[in-house]
């Protein structure tokens, strides 16, 4: 059935976007703008592929991807939080470094057979027609992405620690005055972002296309960054946006194969066009932007000594 086939590929295409974006969302909610998502993603992809290739276990690969992303993001944390380097420049540098470093690490892995993560079907539920194969017969990354979005939403808006994290992102000076460890919290948020980007990368090299090739993130990190703004910093918005982008990407390929005569370059550019449109719409409503944008986003914090 073609609709189901299309939706199945949409899920695979959307999951890495959701994963990377939710991590960046938490990072930005804590006031740190990390433009290095693309770099952390490719590092996660190569880490995951190398570990899975060496051990034969996609699950160890997944953990390795997560760890690689988190550790790599520490470099960003150290430069921007401890040494107070410019976040935008450091983030861009992190992407460039990640692309180069992952290519170097992965040089001997190009063309090697990958390990594909099997799908994990939930008994009974996966037997439901149509919905079953779509929602209950997926790989671990899909379930994780939903769980992380739900968990993040709950954490940010239903827990005290979430409130503290948002406070740090809105006014680090006030939070500091209240005795909150701003730098510490930002480190954790940066690492969470790195871990999620690493997971997203692992999904690329273990599920999407179980192989390693240089720069295999191919711009998905940048789409994830746009998604955070698209979602105006709301976790469920990230999920929705991620699936919308995935659907547009897959939909345009099918439209072509169906012979629908829309220029394919336009269709390929559609996700970016949609982002710009949404940004324009959001920015029309200034109040809406201000409610959710972390007020201290991108601003360095130097505690008084």
């Amino acid at each position, binding site marked *: 059935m073609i609709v189901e086939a299309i939706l199945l590929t949409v899920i695979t295409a959307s999951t890495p976007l959701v994963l990377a974006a939710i991590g960046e969302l938490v990072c930005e909610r804590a006031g740190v703008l990390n433009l290095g998502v693309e770099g952390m993603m490719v590092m996660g992809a190569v880490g995951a592929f190398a570990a899975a290739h060496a051990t034969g276990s996609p699950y160890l690969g997944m953990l390795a991807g997560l760890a690689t992303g988190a550790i790599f993001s520490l470099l960003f944390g150290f430069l921007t939080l401890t040494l107070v380097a410019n976040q935008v420049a450091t983030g861009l540098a992190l992407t460039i470094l990640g692309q180069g470093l992952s290519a170097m690490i992965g040089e001997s892995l190009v063309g090697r057979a990958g390990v594909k993560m099997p799908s994990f079907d939930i008994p009974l539920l996966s037997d439901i027609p149509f919905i079953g194969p779509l929602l209950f017969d997926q790989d671990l990354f899909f379930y994780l992405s939903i769980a992380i979005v739900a968990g993040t939403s709950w954490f940010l808006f239903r827990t005290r620690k979430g409130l503290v994290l948002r406070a740090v992102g809105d006014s680090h000076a006030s939070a500091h005055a209240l005795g909150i460890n701003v730098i510490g919290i930002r480190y954790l948020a940066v690492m969470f972002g790195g871990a999620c980007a690493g997971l997203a990368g692992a999904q690329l090299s273990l599920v999407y296309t179980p192989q390693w090739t240089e720069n295999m993130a191919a711009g998905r990190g940048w789409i994830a960054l746009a998604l955070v703004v698209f979602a105006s910093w709301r976790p469920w918005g990230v999920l929705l946006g991620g699936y919308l982008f995935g659907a547009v990407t897959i939909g345009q*390929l099918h439209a072509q194969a169906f012979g629908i005569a829309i220029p394919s370059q336009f269709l390929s550019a559609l996700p970016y066009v949609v982002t710009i449109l949404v940004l324009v719409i959001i920015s029309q409503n200034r109040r809406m932007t201000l409610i959710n944008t972390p007020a201290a986003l991108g601003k360095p914090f130097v505690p008084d000594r």
Partner: protein
Amino acid sequence: MKSLKLTLAASAAAIAGFAASGASAQEDVKACFVYVGSATDGGWTQAHDIARQELEDTLGIETAYIENVPEGPDAERAIERMARSGCTIVFTTSFGFMEPTLKVAAKYPDVKFEHATGFKTADNVATYNSRFYEGRYISGVIAGSISESGIGGYIGSFPIPEVVMGIDAFQLGAQSVNPDFTTKVVWANTWFDPGREADAAKALIDQGVDVLAQHTDTTAPMQIAAERGIKAFGQASDMIEAGPETQLTAILDTWAPYYIKRVKAVQDGSWTSEQSWDGLKDGILSMAPYTNMPDDVKALAEETEAKIISGELKPFTGPVTLQDGTPWLAEGETADDGTLLGLNVLVEGVDGTIPSSE
């Protein structure tokens, strides 16, 4: 002056080499390469680098290369660095290096330049390309013979003549054995994005395609074809490892014979600027082993290859009708190289459109 000295040196070396039965190194020629990708990318650039190594081994000359040179302002600096560092001949192996190559060449008239896949030349700039479409025609013959649904899938990168030519050749090949064959085309608008290529492959397979060809650079489509149990063709490199039971054959870029021929021409002073467009018969293009197909299909593929090599078969020979039904090539008429190099029409049986910028 330098070129005279070089010629003298080269002839002296050639004589010396002749005396020592060709074993001695011709140290005066240094061949340099400027690559757009990494030398181990498993595709386009790696094919050039393998040829470079073969050139070095065969002629015993010194070679050098710069990899990962982006097509932009940096390219000119990279090419100039090569020209200044004592290279006798510089091969620039990406379409986007055309203008930078010409600019640098104007500044260094004593250095020879060879630009891959370009169309502009100068006194010291030659161009070279490969007739990939010959291989794609053979792929089409195979696809037409083994496809049960009669629908082939083709993942295109960008709508440039090179790619359009491949799609048409594939369809013409398939049509020659199955007149009802259609080729569904999906444009990925990328040369290199495993994820998008995989998605394109899935979309095509979901829509009933049972044999897949690609003009993008990663093995992702091959992987998807293997996963879904259909057959596919490799591109630029042998992709058999990605689909041991899937790959039918692959078009291989084997540049070494050309590089050796041109460097020898520099050595004996016969190098001139020309536009080379070789194919299967010159060895610049070859086919990966024909596998995963019945013996009669394999025989037919080999026969087709032999006919192309002998010149008996030219893929773009009439009668050929265009997609919209208008006649293009009359019976027995063969498209000339100029037409092919600027090709922007799809032939009958191709299910897809060339995206226009209108």
